[in-house]
């Protein structure tokens, strides 16, 4: 496997930002009641991750050491605000479902975490790949959790009736708990548990190596 493809594939399963790095859990719990908002949230976060990683990486030799975190936050906040304005102008229904959670991407640990841990030490292209990979990893979890919650909470998927409801002479009666925020805790916890066997601690240690050492190894 090449270095670049690993940058993208690793965070999807083995180094998943939500289930392994335990970052960005708040929004994974909050916007996963139905699938469509979860997908929009995933796309938005992935775009912002790539954007912030690219910009931070491009400016990494310029950012003043003493206040680099604040400037990274400023760059992220700008991207998030612009994305939020676009959502409000073009998808107002979804924007109102996501409400504050788009704005809260600013404080999503994945974004600042990757900017500081990866983009500050790596060239632009690998940083973009890293952002994409981490974004896909986050999206995978969001889509999984939202699919389970929408399917068992309402019998629908993407708004289409999959299970025939008992109210309409079918067999399925919706599990109310799936529509409540608490169910997301159980599902995310289950996914964290499932992803443990694939993640011996050594792997986490290996990931800490920076770009140059890593490239030497492969």
């Amino acid at each position, binding site marked *: 496997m090449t270095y670049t493809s690993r940058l993208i594939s690793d965070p999807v399963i083995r180094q998943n930002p939500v289930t392994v790095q335990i970052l960005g859990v708040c929004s994974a719990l909050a916007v996963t009641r139905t699938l469509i908002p979860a997908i929009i949230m995933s796309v938005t976060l992935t775009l912002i991750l790539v954007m912030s990683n690219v910009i931070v990486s491009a*400016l990494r*030799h*310029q*950012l*003043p*050491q*003493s*206040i680099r975190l604040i*400037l990274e936050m*400023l*760059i992220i*906040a*700008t991207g998030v*605000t*612009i994305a939020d*304005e*676009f959502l*409000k*102008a*073009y998808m*107002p229904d979804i924007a109102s479902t996501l409400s504050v959670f788009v704005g809260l991407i600013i404080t999503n640990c994945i974004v600042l975490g990757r900017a500081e841990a990866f983009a500050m030490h790596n060239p632009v292209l690998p940083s973009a790949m890293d952002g994409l990979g981490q974004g896909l990893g986050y999206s995978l979890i969001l889509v999984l959790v939202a699919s389970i919650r929408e399917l068992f909470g309402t019998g629908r998927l993407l708004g289409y009736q999959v299970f025939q409801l008992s109210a309409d002479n079918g067999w399925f009666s919706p599990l109310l708990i799936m529509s409540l925020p608490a169910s997301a805790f159980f599902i995310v916890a289950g996914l964290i548990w499932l992803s443990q066997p694939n993640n011996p601690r050594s792997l986490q240690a290996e990931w800490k190596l920076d770009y140059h050492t890593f490239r030497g190894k492969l």
Partner: protein
Amino acid sequence: MAEKIFSTRHTIIVTLVITITCAILVVATSGLLKPRQLAWLAIEMNRSIVTAMAPSLVAGEILTPAEVVEQFSQLDVLLIELETGERSTAEDPLVYNIFTVGDNPDLQYKIPTSMDIAGLVNRPIFAPVYQLYDGAILQRVGFPVYGPGMWSTITGYIVLERDYNTISNIYFYQHGETPGIGDQIESQEWRQQWVGKKIRNEAGEFKLHQRKSTQDKDMDEYQIDAISGATVTSVSVISMAQYWLGDDGYGLYLVRQREESRQ
């Protein structure tokens, strides 16, 4: 190169450049997208009046933005001055927003305490009226109303039949009442009992009121039941209707139009 990221001069310059760039980007996006966002808001607001005026809609059916624009264009919107009940051209009725005009004290009128049954304190001087015609024949007339509920300001529309005295529909635009309790005012069951109720009797006396006792059945066509368990919210809505349809609200206009419709 590694040295400069520690220098004060460099820090200040880089910070200024990044801050100004970010500020320009945010302001530009927000400025460019503002008209589009406002257009959506207008559609959201028009959606409620269009839905209120078209009671043939299946409960829970949601109009698409295109349908909202199309059906709203079929409504005649006029502005009236509440104090005289006359039509006015002081404001553009399509732009005038009665629910937010409270921010402008010049367009407010202080309600005399004795008349203020819904606890509004102030009300706008002007109000829009929505008329739906089928050919040359008036079908229904919609009136925006608002007032304090238990936690929040409840806004909505009361739609009357062409006799300007029979309620055809009541529909809520926004409210922040207790979910599962106060928000029962939006339920089909409760709204259904408003349909067909009369505001005034033949002699022109104001009669619409809350039912206090199950005994006086002969008054049925003027009575609205509160919702048990959601008394504060539902009684607020009844007081709101009484205020707005009464003499200090749309009353003068309603009485005059009723006379005309009889001729």
